[in-house]
């Protein structure tokens, strides 16, 4: 029993650490998709953020400056997608894919000079005062974690509030649900969508920065290694709800860490496959229940808006 409890607590603790980049990137994608745009370039924006963050943190010695650079890199990459997919109305799926391919290639090229050296001043594990000493909850979530992990949880709560309880959130959701109506109501649809896309880029940049500044404080070619795609699945699995994203992220994180701690019992490849199957399942279930009032995908998700006038 003791062993089981210890396993549960360490699994939760590691799930939080591992899921931090997933949560940040997924929160960004949730906002993007809430505004009606799909950005398949999460992996590309993340890796650009990881490299930019590492380079700046390594040169300046300040990981938080690095994080700012990571955020900026994510925004810049997202702006390309925003320009192509929102403004020019190019095919957003291909645009996102292109962003990923381009980002992985470009960072590999630029990052050559930065490979193989550890970050000299990485973000470190800390205990959160007060909460760390709470039984069970403390060891699970508040001891020896990165500050960015808690900020991610906080960001989820804030985003949930903004999306559902503020006028700004209403505007974002309206351009994703019914852009024509939003337009008629005086919302500048393309502008809102473009900003949502860049916000998604900022969050993906933070996710990438977390990887190279805290989780794996170094730079390696392709170091995101598919995490961006899991984040994308996560956004959908959470059914575009920031609060649900917290639990979804912890679930995905737990599955990943369990694929190592439970290797005696399960083929790890089958456990790591689960997030993707869960996502499909979640979509199917919501679709079945949609008539009963459960909310699903934003109505205009993936459809470019072309009223044709500014």
């Amino acid at each position: 029993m003791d062993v089981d409890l210890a396993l549960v607590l360490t699994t939760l603790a590691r799930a939080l650490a591992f899921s931090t980049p997933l949560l940040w990137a997924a929160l960004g994608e949730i906002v993007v998709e809430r505004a009606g745009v799909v950005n398949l370039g999460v992996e590309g924006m993340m890796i650009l953020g990881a490299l930019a963050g590492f380079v700046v943190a390594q040169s300046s010695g300040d990981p938080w400056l690095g994080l700012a650079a990571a955020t900026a890199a994510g925004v810049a990459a997202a702006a390309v997608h925003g320009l192509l997919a929102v403004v020019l109305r190019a095919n957003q799926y291909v645009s996102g894919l292109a962003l990923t391919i381009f980002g992985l290639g470009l960072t590999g090229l630029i990052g050559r000079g930065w490979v193989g050296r550890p970050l000299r001043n990485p973000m470190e594990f800390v205990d959160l005062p007060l909460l760390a000493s709470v039984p069970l909850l403390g060891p699970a979530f508040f001891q020896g974690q990165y500050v960015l992990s808690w900020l991610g949880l906080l960001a989820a709560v804030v985003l949930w509030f903004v999306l559902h309880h503020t006028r700004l959130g209403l505007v974002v959701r309206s351009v994703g649900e019914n852009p024509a109506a939003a337009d008629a109501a005086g919302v500048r649809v393309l502008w809102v969508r473009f900003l949502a896309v860049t916000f998604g880029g900022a969050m993906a940049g933070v996710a990438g920065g977390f990887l190279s500044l805290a989780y794996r404080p170094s730079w390696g070619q392709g170091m995101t290694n598919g995490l961006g795609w899991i984040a994308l699945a996560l956004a959908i699995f959470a059914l575009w709800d920031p609060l649900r994203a917290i639990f979804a992220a912890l679930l995905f994180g737990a599955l990943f860490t369990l694929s190592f701690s439970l290797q005696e019992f399960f083929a790890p490849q089958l456990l790591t496959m689960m997030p993707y199957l869960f996502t499909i399942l979640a979509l199917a279930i919501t679709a079945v229940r949609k008539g009963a009032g459960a909310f699903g995908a934003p109505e205009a998700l993936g459809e470019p808006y072309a009223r044709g006038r500014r």
Partner: protein
Amino acid sequence: MRRILMSLAALVALAFATAQDDPLKVAFIYVGPVGDYGFSYAHDLGRQATQEHFGDAIETVYVEDVPEPEVEAFIDQLVADGADVIFGTSFGYGDGILAAAQRYPDVIFGWGTGISRAPNVLTYMADFYQVYYLNGLIAAALSESGDLGYVAAFPIAEVKRHINGFTLGAREVNPDAEVAVRWLYNWFDPAGATEASEALMANGADVLAFTEDTPTVIQVAADRGYPGFSHYASMVEFAPDHVASGQLVHWDTIYIDILEKVLDGTYTTTNLEDVDYFWLLEQGAVELGSEPGVPVAEPFVDDLREVVIDHPEFGEIDVYELVLERRDQMAQGRDVFEPFMGPLEDRNGNLVYEDGYMPTLEDLLSMEFAVPGVVGPWDNEPQ
């Protein structure tokens, strides 16, 4: 950047030069980026040392990040570029190398970690099992709990050899030591290596060893204050106070030997069928050390000296001395000391090598069993 232009110009100039003056053109094909700080990085250090050794007599080039099924296409390009000798460093290049070797009978091929040969294809390997055994001695002496952790890439014979060697070493110092293994099923997976290391430490492991292609395990162990081991090349920079020792490779010893024999005509495109390098401490292809020339990192020497055991062969001996003794024995040859010398039982109690049996190369290359002390899943384990 200007260098590339100059080398282009040099190529043009070469075309006009007489054929006799051409240096031997040697190409290396890597499966990862040279900056991976793992397998390909180590091979490229070997290439650079080889180039330096031969000076103008050879010209080396490399291609990196070559996917396994694309190796044939790259060989085509390299041959078109005039390569005389081509080394493919990955096991997965085998099918491509053997096919290309038939097509280009005038080119000598080397298949690193390979298992089959042809008249113009030799195989070569620098194997770490002896060094892992030495690191096992060190790990057990440094561990408070007797629980060691091992993050492993794939359950292939080579990695199984490593883990078994490590465990035999650990049990020589502490007969109760256990080595818990977690598999990545990947050579490159930083997140996986992180979580595997954390899972091992959560289960009580306080010293971590690994076989995979990043310095992740060392960094993660150091975060919790635990020691780790360099792999392939020095990783001291990644955790300056927490790298106790490690296994270092010198591929150049093998490359230099092969190329010397190519240059003096010993190796030709018709007589390589039986040329298989399996080089160990004896040939200097591998080294014990956190970095070259440092068998045990300074802060850990005293720790090892404090652990004195009653050894059946050496009597009262501290572990630092034991490590150096064993290293020197193995450097003299396998017949002086061999970690896998019979009698050897696997962890299921089967006698795998009879008393006094010296495992052959074939035995080592097909090792499937786990020795007692190894804990965790083990694919294809004989029951």
